[in-house]
């Protein structure tokens, strides 16, 4: 894959102040959300190697799969921030990698209306590399009551984690889901109730493999996928919601040594 960096700001003979490149999707929220999430005056480039994959049309506006594929991105990644331009709370997640680079991140999210979705990857020089995608949708995903909440017994399965670690050559793929209503706080009489923090920690325990903060755009019963370049013997998954509930589980054992 050749170098397909869109250095639009360079092409447009921009003034000395770092100008923001034009949005190929023409979203009305482009500049506003850039300064909101990346900071005023941040250096921004479009970068096709930040590959953001969403379906062309959201069959279910409350469950839209998003995959961020960084396999073509040369790295190293300092931070990843994703957002959904036209959602009431656009921010989806902020991910900070540890020593092992994340090559792929996947998470299902909600869309309130047809919208552009962004992933911004910060490099070692502080430049943000933006990947964009567009998802068409009937909408309403953020303000529809959760299916979990409709079940009076939801607490019985609350916090149940399914998932594991799967060996990759090289590296590891973590895939897990957690039963959580992830209430956005935008449904009448249902307060915001969602997972705010996700952390993966290796055997050392001190420096996390990655940390992630989530906002209300994340979907109910979220499914996470992380692909890391190296596999630790085992990993502890730790999540905490805004009510202070903690969900913890070990992922994988020291078995995939042959890779």
């Amino acid at each position, binding site marked *: 894959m050749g170098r397909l960096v869109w250095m639009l700001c360079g092409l447009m003979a921009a003034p000395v102040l770092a100008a923001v490149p034009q949005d190929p999707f023409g979203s009305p929220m482009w500049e506003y959300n850039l300064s909101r999430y990346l900071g005023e005056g941040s250096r921004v480039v479009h970068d096709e190697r930040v590959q953001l994959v969403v379906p062309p049309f959201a069959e279910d506006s409350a469950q839209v799969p998003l995959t961020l594929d960084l396999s073509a991105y040369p790295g190293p990644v300092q931070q990843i921030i994703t957002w959904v331009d036209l959602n009431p709370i656009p921010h989806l997640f902020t991910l900070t990698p540890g020593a092992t680079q994340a090559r792929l991140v996947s998470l299902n999210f909600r869309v309130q209306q047809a919208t552009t979705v962004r992933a911004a990857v910060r490099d070692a020089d502080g430049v943000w590399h933006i990947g964009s995608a567009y998802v068409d949708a009937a909408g309403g995903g953020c303000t529809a009551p959760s299916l979990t909440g409709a079940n009076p*017994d939801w*607490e019985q399965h609350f916090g149940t984690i399914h998932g594991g670690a799967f060996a990759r050559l090289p590296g590891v793929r973590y895939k897990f889901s957690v039963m959580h209503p992830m*209430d956005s706080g935008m449904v009448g009489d249902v*307060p*915001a109730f969602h997972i705010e923090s996700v952390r993966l920690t290796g055997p050392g325990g001190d420096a996390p493999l990655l940390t992630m903060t989530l906002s209300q755009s994340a979907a109910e019963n979220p499914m996470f996928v992380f692909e890391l370049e190296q596999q630790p013997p085992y990993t502890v998954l730790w999540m905490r919601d805004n*009510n*202070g509930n903690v969900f913890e589980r070990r992922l994988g054992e020291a078995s995939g040594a042959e890779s």
Partner: protein
Amino acid sequence: MRSNRIGMQFTASALALAVSYGANAVTDEDIMNDHMTTDDVVSYGMGLQGQRFSTLDTLNTDNVRNLQPAWAFAFGGEKMRGQESQPMVKDGVMYVSASYSRVYAIDAKTGEELWQYDARLPDGIMPCCDVINRGVALYDDKVIFGTLDAKLVALNKDTGKVVWIKKVADYQAGYSITAAPIIVNGKLITGVSGGEFGIVGKVEAYDPNTGEILWTRPTVEGHMGYVYKDGEAIENGISGGEAGRTWPGDLWKTGGAATWLGGTYDPVTDSLFFGTGNPAPWNSHLRPGDNLFSSSRLAIDPNDGSIKWHFQTTPHDGWDYDGVNELISFDYEDDGDVVHAAATADRNGFFYVLNRETGDFIRGFPFVDKITWAEGLDDNGRPIYADGGRPGNPADVSADKGEPVLAQPSFLGGKNWMPMAFNQETGLFYVPSNEWAMDIWNEPVSYKKGAAYLGAGFTIRPVNDDYIGVLRAIDPKTGEEVWRHENRAPLWGGVMTTAGDLVFTGTPEGYLKAFDAKTGEELYRFNTGSGVVGTPITWEMDGEQYVSVASGWGGAVPLWGGEVARVVKDFNQGGMVWTFKLPSDRVAGN
């Protein structure tokens, strides 16, 4: 030059942060001295003894008519229901809880919200008596409260973010928490609700910084208490020595005695005073015996949860006369000797004065107009049961239910949860009380986890045409009712009194009212828009005296009040906190 300036800015802002943090942290000393400091309210009860007495006299009988609303704050949402909270104030910020386990931080000067926390409650919560909460505890940089699904939650006081959460008991077995926890010398103390579901009551201490449990003390005879060291439970004695002394068979295993109203603390005797609720089930014929420690006041050692003494107001209760009502420590002189006493106005209609060092009975007397179930109290304060005062045993008749009786007070009590206040200047207790009766009968029942465990049917009715509620000024030394103020609807809000000779309380009709503490004359009223069933507070800010109270009709009366509905059916729900102040230019009377 440039980097130097940045460095200086950093130092200055770091210092400002440190100073503001230090000024805002709530210390053990702040809490222990809360009854003497006028610029904050950092304990439930306006002092750990629970006197609800303020030494402020800026606002007094001469100028209370000039009291003006400063701001009102809506809890919002469609979740209204009863607002029984007592607000707290520290460094210009009010912390107040609301129905459905919500907590708010509000700028006390402007009424603007700083943050809000909504607990996400499961659908299966089982509060018996409305989805209320009575208040928060403040400690260090945390705001701590109990939820309807029986958890303790600690929030950062500046952000409202959860610091820790701890499950105290299983809500699916009927437990919940509605009372305000209290902080005593670095320990967070809480009780539990759920006496209608055959739970076992308990008092527990937690580390307020981490939520780790420190000790647990069951309030039903036969259950083991524990202290915790390094996460390990160490046996600390069975409550009451052994099972079966005052309970038949296995009934102690589901004996109730819920500690649902929290407690007070007395530094003179280093004792926690917690009351306990009704024994389960309501049908007393199933459990002959005194049923310890139901319907009692317990003096508990805050260090390890040991029971120092108990005083049972209604042994072998058959009327749902919970003994939870607050035990307020106070001193008085008797022939030149200072008596360390404590007083409580019980659901059962009697007012008790106890020696708070020993739990010995000093005196007791009815504070309501009529008591049917007992003829009086003996020398030890034990009730002398009236013949025919107890509902009949269903086993004595062939029908499904036993012989009904008319009992007075009703099970909602001569006084219920709403705290009374003690004025150090007048030496009087101001008791929010009610005059009502009930028809009650017993039925067979067996325990099923999470189901109501009553074995009784009942209906409440007023005994007077024109009033149910009576605010009473009671002399604890003589039993005299010094004055009374009658109210058409039942009183369900707490009372607060001041050195300005004022008594404040609210009414279900919506009024915050102020009375002359000596005469009972009504000096002020303001309608808050919905029934007041919260507890007022007062404090001083920028040289002006403030009064705050939560407004929002609800609680047990509309749910359980029976014929009382005739009086209260038109009261609308709400959910606000109202704040009043005496403007500095209106301090002079007129």
